């Protein structure tokens, strides 16, 4: 039987939850997009996290560093999300998903909508495609470290992974990106602007 709160109390809890989380939702969306590479998946992930957090609304007030804590919750959910995908029923459809050491690497990619594709320039498309080829763990560390600017020490807590593992994961991720994106578009002397 679900706990039924009096209406006024429920409204207060909801209102506090919204006050606390509203400033974080865009950040979570951005992070979720960096993890998944898809707007639809990012929205699903964030929605899922919010749904899971609301029953714990009163606990959230006591969390000192809310943003990194939320990033950790989101990352955990992302890993679950990836595992769900990995065992998705569609797997039975594919005759051969293509072998790889990491089963998470063989996830079917989700394509963005045509409008988003149109907005991307060629370089951006290539980088995103390369990021999609990383494992979820590699993608998380490279985007959170190199793009979001978290230190490896901070990521130890957020990603709940030892420093040594993070360092080697980051090293492998960058190495793979360099393989996927050869010298030519980043040749010496070329400026790379956003």
């Amino acid at each position: 039987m679900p706990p039924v709160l009096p209406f006024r109390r429920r409204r207060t809890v909801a209102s506090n939850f919204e006050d606390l989380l509203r400033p974080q939702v865009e950040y979570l969306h951005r992070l979720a997009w960096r993890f998944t590479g898809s707007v639809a998946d990012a929205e699903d992930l964030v929605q899922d996290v919010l749904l899971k957090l609301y029953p714990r609304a009163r606990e959230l007030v006591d969390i000192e560093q809310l943003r990194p804590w939320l990033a950790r919750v989101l990352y955990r959910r992302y890993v679950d999300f990836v595992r769900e995908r990995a065992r998705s029923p569609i797997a039975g459809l594919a005759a051969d998903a293509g072998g790889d050491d990491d089963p998470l690497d063989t996830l079917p990619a989700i394509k963005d909508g045509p409008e988003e594709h149109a907005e991307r320039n060629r370089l951006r498309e290539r980088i995103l495609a390369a990021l999609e080829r990383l494992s979820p763990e590699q993608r998380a560390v490279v985007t959170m470290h190199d793009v979001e600017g978290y230190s490896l020490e901070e990521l130890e807590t957020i990603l709940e992974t030892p420093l040594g593992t993070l360092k080697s994961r980051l090293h492998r991720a960058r190495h793979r990106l360099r393989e996927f994106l050869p010298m030519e578009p980043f040749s010496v002397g070329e400026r790379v602007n956003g």
Partner: protein
Amino acid sequence: MECHDLALQLDDYLDGRLDAVGQRSIQEHLELCPNCRRRHQHAVALQAAVRTLTAPTPHPDFVDRALSRATHAAVGSARHTRRAVLGMALAASVVLGVALGVFLATQPAPVQKVALTLEQPETVRVMFNSAKPLQAATLSLALPENLELVGYGERRELTWQTDLREGGNLLQLPLIARGTVKDELVARLSHGGSSKTFRLKIEIKNAVESGMSPVGFAELVVQPQAGGMS
């Protein structure tokens, strides 16, 4: 320092994690070795390019919508707390054969029916018969209210990209009905600008019937409708 050493320490150098001696050693090697200089410049440029990737801004009403759903779903979703466990025995199966043929057949697809027992996971198997291999086909599922794909919670829209081989391709959908399912499950397979849609009506078996006579292994062939381009 050898080129191999530089390759190993390049990331630490980029991240400023080397001590002064280590940094100097790298810098001296970079001055002397054009190959490593290119490698370093490539790494720096690539890192800068990755940093410029701006995330798309959420839909204007996404923040309000997401917060509102979270706060309003709490009471309503409590009845769904009894989660199905993946890997548990699945009671019954139905096979729907979907002949893809040339993929643009024009006959409308009759709506197929499947009977499920409330709160009991059952696998619906859909056999796609493809006349030729299809690379990167997109399968989308729209689940009606009160119907869940086991392991996906209350997500209503799901999309995968996959390859289809020539001949039979079995799609297994472990479904669980949480209540009366009024609308149909809609699955759409798209490839190269064309798509096919098929619909599945979900009926709920009553407890007596389901206890006495589990659904058998039926094979139905449907001719999916064409069009519905997205």
